[in-house]
């Protein structure tokens, strides 16, 4: 059974048709590369899946069950996590604190409740180990490399055992070595059976990890096919409109 099926999703903002009847599916442990030019509707689609927007028409199914998300928290409850482009990290907190931000485990000492740092550090260290990232839970995020920061943001999504992780431009503005690190992180997620939706402009990165590529142009899905049967040249053509559909 497919992890996520969206069918006939449309979204209009006033007179602007941002998405028109987009249908797409993603399997467990599959990496989907979502591509398109600026303004093609990538963010709109992702925001609908993440519960930021309600679609104007169409429906979504998670593992066969119809879902409607009114708020981001509704999507999180169904196991959909989002890694934002700016990563949404607090630089002055430790890696472990960032992983647990907003859901810190508490211990009680009589009537007094306090944060269980030991537990946070252990769990965070375990998550970094699973991601094979050399990230120390007690270090401040401010001092970390782009790849480590990405690991912290991804570890945060893993805390809730997600089904789908969506990543917005995770390889933009980081060094080549760190790109390799981030792509490895994405493969680890896939190996755990998590479906990954990767939004990116960087063609080589998308093709090196994706099982499937989907291309949006002016709100319409113009391609959705196995990455092995496509090529960066074809996708470029699809994005610009030189190739109509594939």
């Amino acid at each position, binding site marked *: 059974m497919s992890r996520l099926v969206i069918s006939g999703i449309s979204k209009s903002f006033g007179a602007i048709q941002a998405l028109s009847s987009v249908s797409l599916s993603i399997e467990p442990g599959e990496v989907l590369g979502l591509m398109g030019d600026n303004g093609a509707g990538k963010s709109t689609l992702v925001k609908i899946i993440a519960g930021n927007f309600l679609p104007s028409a169409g429906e979504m199914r998670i593992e066969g069950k119809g879902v409607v998300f009114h708020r981001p928290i509704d999507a999180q409850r169904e196991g959909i996590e989002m890694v934002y482009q700016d990563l949404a990290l*607090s*630089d002055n907190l430790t890696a472990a*604190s960032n992983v647990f931000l907003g859901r*810190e485990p508490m211990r009680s000492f009589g009537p007094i409740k*306090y*944060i269980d740092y030991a537990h946070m550090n252990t769990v965070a260290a375990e998550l970094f180990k699973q991601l*094979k990232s050399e990230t120390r839970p007690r*270090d401040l995020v401010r001092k970390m490399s782009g790849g480590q920061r990405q690991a912290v943001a991804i570890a945060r999504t893993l805390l809730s055992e997600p089904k789908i992780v969506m990543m917005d431009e995770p390889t933009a503005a980081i060094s080549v070595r760190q790109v390799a690190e981030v792509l490895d992180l994405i493969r680890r997620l896939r190996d755990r059976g998590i479906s990954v939706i990767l939004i990116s402009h960087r063609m080589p990165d998308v093709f090196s990890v994706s099982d499937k590529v989907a291309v949006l142009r002016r709100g319409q899905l113009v391609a959705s096919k196995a990455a092995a049967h496509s090529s960066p040249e074809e996708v470029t053509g699809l994005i610009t409109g030189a190739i109509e559909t594939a």
Partner: protein
Amino acid sequence: MTTLDDIIGNSEHRSWFARIRSLQVFWVFSAAVLACLALTLLTDTFASDRNLFNVARNFAFVAIIAIGMTAVIASGGIDLSVGSSVVLSAMVISVAMASGLSFWISALLALGAALLVGLLNGILIAYAGMPAFVVTLGTLSAARSLAMVLSDNKMIWEFGPDHGILLWVGGGSTFGLPHPLYVLTALTIVMSLVFRWTRWGQHLFAIGSNENAAVLTGIPVKRLKVSIYMFSAFTAGLAGILMAGWLGSVTTNLGQAMELTVIAAAVIGGANLAGGEGTALGAVVGALLIEVIRNSLILLGISTFWQGMFIGTFIIVAVAFDRFRNFRA
């Protein structure tokens, strides 16, 4: 060969000394201790009981508010209204007590008045989205004016039936230590624990370092901000009550320009105006250093006109020092 486990398990600092050395508060504290040692050797008045008592009491007022200010600054804001909250609180308690109310009821009224200023600041900043600098600049002016209206701009030195209690609370001492110092000690310990070990403290620093991230992770940022400004106003109200008791009289120029000393203390103690950094102990040490500088200039017979020059230099040196340390790292 080092494994992934070793790397993840490693601590950032090799020893406890390396850890302490990386804290700004350690260096500021060292400077304060050095200044005290030098003064003990250079003058025979510094180490006298009388002088130490005065230093301890004088710095306590600034330090108490500096802890509140540290919370605000660490959350990425600023509170310019604390000096006016001090005078408002002092005026409310003196007017209430002069009218015959008991000390405890008057003290609650005074704290309530200060908390209202904080509540107004917090609501305008968090919910109306106005800049903290402008909002608190407004309440700086408004709260002092309210204190003038309340007292008809007259000095109050008769505090009704509980006159003695107020003077004892603010100006008295137990076991040779002034009472404001006890209040400061309790507040420092409680707030050090709160900053580090509670969600409120943790989220406060999260807001200061990346407000957008805090919103996205579901932290109730707006409510938290209101509580932070109320806490800052609470510390100002507390200091106002203690100062009224210490001085034995209240005039409407009490706490004038105090917000600047308080901000200086917080910043010297390691609070980062960009948000996300600061400690309760740092605020206290920063306030202590300012008071020691002030006291030493007087004892050494240097004109008090030089005071501002020394404190100003110290603010810049403390922040520059932090900058250079981060460059190296």
